[in-house]
């Protein structure tokens, strides 16, 4: 097994308590950042090569440089804890085990970008975890890490939690901003990008919870140290959520670049009943499915998964054994995307419903040969033709499944068409 220390989910009892966090060096990174120039902080994050953990692997430091340096309007940070992509359950672990490192990362980000208010958007179902994070925020306020003139530095910032109410689409960054503003969660057309016109028309940065939790490490230990963890182009510790047919499902912290087969067989204890592996969805339901025979040497990092024909996404690895009825899984995912489509774009609204309907025909062995190409047709018509990436997210699983598992569809044709 790849040896690794844990930096995001350290094995220290009661680490969620502020006193325990502080006695293990917590909030030292924020103090250090306050002694640096804001641009130096951003530069450090940029050089570290930290890439967003929310799904798109976007370079975090670069994103921060998009924020205007001076602005006559307030600037905002929105931290994305919507975590609703099927197969994804890692940010919840941060709220539970290491909320102060998240808060510290948020404070450092606010300082670097000159932001005075941060909102942490958390899915409504996480009521219990919202309370855990709120308790940590309250403790940090009490100790003077958040609020006015923090630690006598002259820098002030507030952190507020905002509870979602059951809508996957609100994880999409522009929809998330509408949701905070008290609107329905409709994605906005881009441009303008959030750094130009975000919350209430003001410059805004959106980053994932896990992304922000990485930031204090970079400030404490330096970009050089950080950039050497795991894969060079996509470095750092990463939380991999492993679910499905494995003996020990759960969240595992590893350096990027660990082989998927090692994650499945070593970390997650292999497949129950010693069954064979059939397929994996490597990074949450929106990433392309891979056949077991496509996994040799494939690792959990952006380049490796891209070369294999998929992506890291949220690193939510869904494992499926040889007996899995893939058509049923795909049909269930199509139902999900149809249910979660906000309905603004016709290709997404109509296409997702249609995909689900056609897939149900396969599920019930009532499909015709032409239906296989029909699925591809519908998916191709959605992809790239919508306001937000939910449309693509609905199309990719279907496209990849038809290309890589055509036989599964052929097995589900109506008897007459054989």
């Amino acid at each position, binding site marked *: 097994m790849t040896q690794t220390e844990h930096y995001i989910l350290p094995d220290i009892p009661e680490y969620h308590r502020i006193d325990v966090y502080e006695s293990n060096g917590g909030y030292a990174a924020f103090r250090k950042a306050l002694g640096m120039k804001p641009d130096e902080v951003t530069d450090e994050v940029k050089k570290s090569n930290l890439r967003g953990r929310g799904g798109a692997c976007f370079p975090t430091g670069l994103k921060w440089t998009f924020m205007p340096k001076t602005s006559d309007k*307030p600037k905002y940070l929105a931290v994305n804890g919507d*975590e*609703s*992509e*099927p*197969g*994804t*359950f890692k*940010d*919840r672990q941060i709220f539970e085990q290491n909320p102060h490192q998240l808060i510290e990362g948020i404070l450092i980000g606010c300082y670097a970008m000159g932001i005075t*208010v941060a909102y942490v958007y958390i*899915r*409504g*179902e*996480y*009521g*219990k975890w919202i309370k855990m994070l709120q308790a940590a925020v309250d403790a940090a306020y009490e100790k003077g890490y958040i609020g006015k003139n923090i630690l006598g530095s002259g820098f002030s910032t*507030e952190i*507020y939690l*905002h*509870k*979602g*109410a*059951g*809508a*996957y689409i609100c994880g999409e960054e522009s929809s998330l901003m509408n*949701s*905070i*503003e*008290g*609107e*329905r*969660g409709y994605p906005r057309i881009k441009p303008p990008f959030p750094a130009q016109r975000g919350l*209430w028309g003001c410059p805004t940065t959106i980053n994932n919870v896990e992304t922000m939790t990485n930031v204090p490490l970079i400030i404490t230990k330096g970009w050089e140290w950080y950039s050497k963890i795991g894969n060079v182009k996509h470095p750092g510790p990463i939380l991999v*959520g*492993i*679910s*499905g*047919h494995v003996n020990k*499902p*759960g*969240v595992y912290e590893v350096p990027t670049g660990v082989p998927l087969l090692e994650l499945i067989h070593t970390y997650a204890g292999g497949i129950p009943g010693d069954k064979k592996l059939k397929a994996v*969805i490597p990074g949450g*339901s929106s990433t392309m499915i891979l056949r077991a025979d496509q996994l040799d040497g494939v690792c959990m990092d952006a380049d490796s998964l891209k070369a294999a024909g998929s992506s890291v996404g949220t690193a*939510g690895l*869904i494992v*499926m054994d040889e007996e*899995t009825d893939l058509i*049923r*899984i795909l049909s*269930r*995912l199509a139902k*999900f995307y149809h*249910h*979660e489509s906000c309905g603004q774009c016709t290709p997404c609204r109509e296409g997702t419903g249609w995909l689900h309907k056609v897939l149900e025909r396969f599920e019930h062995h009532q499909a015709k040969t032409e239906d296989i190409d029909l699925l591809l047709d519908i998916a191709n018509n959605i992809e790239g033709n919508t306001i937000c990436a939910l449309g693509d997210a609905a199309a990719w699983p279907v496209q990849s499944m038809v290309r890589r598992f055509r036989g599964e569809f052929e097995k589900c044709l109506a008897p007459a068409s054989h």
Partner: protein
Amino acid sequence: MLNEENLKKIEEIGKRYPEAKAALLPALWIAQEQDGWISEETMKQIGDLLGLPYGHVLGVVTFYTMFNSKPLGTYHIEVCTNASCQLRGSDKILRKVEHVCSAGAGHTSPDGKWTVNEVECMGACGGAPMIAIGEEYYENLTPDKVEEILRKLP
């Protein structure tokens, strides 16, 4: 209708945002915590409070699946049937819940005790299959365990 204490709470929360409208989701949550659901009168009251037309409030309530515009049973049972849970037998869990509660998914039992819903991924895929009862998550379930959990509820 929101009570005095909760009206004050909403006013306090409003200070976190530069515009009154942003307090809408928090206000709806407070209303739902008070009554278990959000009535038309309460929606109008919140609209008046935040300076929003009733139509906007209603539009928001109906957009988000967690806001209830009708009362639910005493216990709200949510069964995740998305991919990771499906792979680990959520079908059987749902059938068991429906049987024990005498209510099909999307319905409330005749005695008003249970409301059963089939839901999308709850972010607990590592503990699949799972259900939630109110805010509490129950993970790594079997049909027998589910039955035991439900039967213990008063």
